[in-house]
């Protein structure tokens, strides 16, 4: 039963990784941008929520609702001001641009908020501490259930958006062939900006969960990026449902690893990531994908 509990907790942890990875997956899927600042954007979202909660005294969830429009606008501007230009000069430039952006965000946060560790756990109410005892060894935390439910909701909503709405078709069309999309009247710049907007807002949601689950500081981003990136790769790059499954697999690997030895947790996730990388892309197909 200890192992069953590890898997259950892993699924909750994995749902958090999936939310973190979602935006990364969108940006790669639509624009082929690997956003190295993704983790820092998530942390930035946590800070924006923190500031709103701090100034108004609202609960973290209400504060996040106010942070969403801020992050949407930020994503839109980020695309038009930075990423769009970098996209014009090949696939390496966006990588460098987002790497630079990552450093800029970290240092701006350091300047503004000092290196103090913060948390939104206290501001989120009873959900952070409530839990249900299921059987002998398995207990389920309310926060875990909430994160899992939100993850499924976010991925489900994206699925409906992409497959049922015209804006979703436009996004898929642009992702598949931006040149042809322009030729049928789609404003690809706007579609890209919308994609980045969504990605940034969902990253902020990941940041909110990070801030409620544990603590964050200005330099928390890169660690989150690594987990998000692993989730995307495990699930298959550019596949949305794959990212959800990849996140869950990463979470389960980590908690099962922790059950083997507490220090083995993160390593177990890395090993799963490496195994998938070798099995799926070991034949050099990754190289081909990137050359496209």
């Amino acid at each position, binding site marked *: 039963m200890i192992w069953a509990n590890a898997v259950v907790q892993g699924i909750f942890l994995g749902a958090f990784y999936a939310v973190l990875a979602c935006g990364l997956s969108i940006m790669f899927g639509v624009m082929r941008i690997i956003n190295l600042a993704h983790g820092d954007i998530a942390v930035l979202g946590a800070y924006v929520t923190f500031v709103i909660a701090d100034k108004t005294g609202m609960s973290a969830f209400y504060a996040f609702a106010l942070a969403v429009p801020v992050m949407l606008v930020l994503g839109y501007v980020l695309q038009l001001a930075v990423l769009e230009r970098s996209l014009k000069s090949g696939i390496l430039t966006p990588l460098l641009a987002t790497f630079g952006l990552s450093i800029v965000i970290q240092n701006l946060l350091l300047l503004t908020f000092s290196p103090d560790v913060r948390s939104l756990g206290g501001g989120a109410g009873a959900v952070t501490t409530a839990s249900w005892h299921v059987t002998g060894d398995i207990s389920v935390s309310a926060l875990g259930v909430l994160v899992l439910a939100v993850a499924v909701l976010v991925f489900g909503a994206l699925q409906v958006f992409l497959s049922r709405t*015209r804006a979703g078709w*436009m996004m*898929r*069309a642009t992702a598949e*062939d931006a040149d*042809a999309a322009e*030729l*049928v*009247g789609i404003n690809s710049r706007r579609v890209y900006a919308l994609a980045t907007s969504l990605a940034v807002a969902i990253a902020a949601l990941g940041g909110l969960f990070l801030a409620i689950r544990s603590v964050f500081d200005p330099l928390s981003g890169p660690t989150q990026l690594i987990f998000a990136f692993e989730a995307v790769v495990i699930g298959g790059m550019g596949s949305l449902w794959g990212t959800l499954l990849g996140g869950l697999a990463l979470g389960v690997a980590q908690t099962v690893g922790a059950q083997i030895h507490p220090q083995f947790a993160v390593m177990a996730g890395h090993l799963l990531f490496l195994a998938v990388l070798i099995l799926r892309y070991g034949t050099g197909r990754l190289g081909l994908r990137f050359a496209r």
Partner: protein
Amino acid sequence: MTLLDVDQLDCRYGLLQAVRGVSFKVDQGETVALIGANGAGKTTLLRSLAGAHRPHGGRVLFDGADVTNKPAHRRVSLGIALVPEGRRLFPSLTVEENLRVAAVAGRRGRWNVQSVMEVFPLLEPRRRFPAATLSGGESQAVAIGRALMSNPRLLLLDEVSLGLAPVVVDAVYRSLANIIKEGTTVLLVEQDLTRALEVAGRVICMLEGRIVLEGTSSSLDREQVIDAYFGLHKSAAAPGAST
């Protein structure tokens, strides 16, 4: 009435000059065929008319307005639609989604999913299939239908017969004849000379980025066109174009 006025258009890919000072006009309701050997600059010319390629110099006027610097999606809403070389469908979208996504420009007119299905009845049973699963002929039908969805005033067709079986090409051209009858102005690139002369009222022949011969289909004889096509008697066909 002149619908399209191309003035001294220059197109480059880096140092390579693909289109060199091309000027011509297309009247409302006309069907013009653009012919020429591979590398003559036909595709580049069409792409820069559609806005997919930024020209290096010259101007493109559409219905009297300068559209030279307008992006492709803006030109679609003005009424220019290109059926690109190689069809370029969106593979994961179904046939219907491929068509409906192309109606974003919001131009009203005769064309909608239903009327496209009527012109290309072969698409009706394939409506809910992803475009990736279509045959060459079906793909081409979707590509043309997709361009029609924006209700264009000027339809640009780039080698619609490429890679298709002759029977399928016949079917595509039969549908095209109907579309032309509707009054849509058409500028098409076609490798098959006979077919070009058959469908078009006027023919423009390009060689190495320049127009070397232009005239109504009835006034040109085959020999003359073939000479221009391959660049034989270059100076005799078009004195101004010789190097």
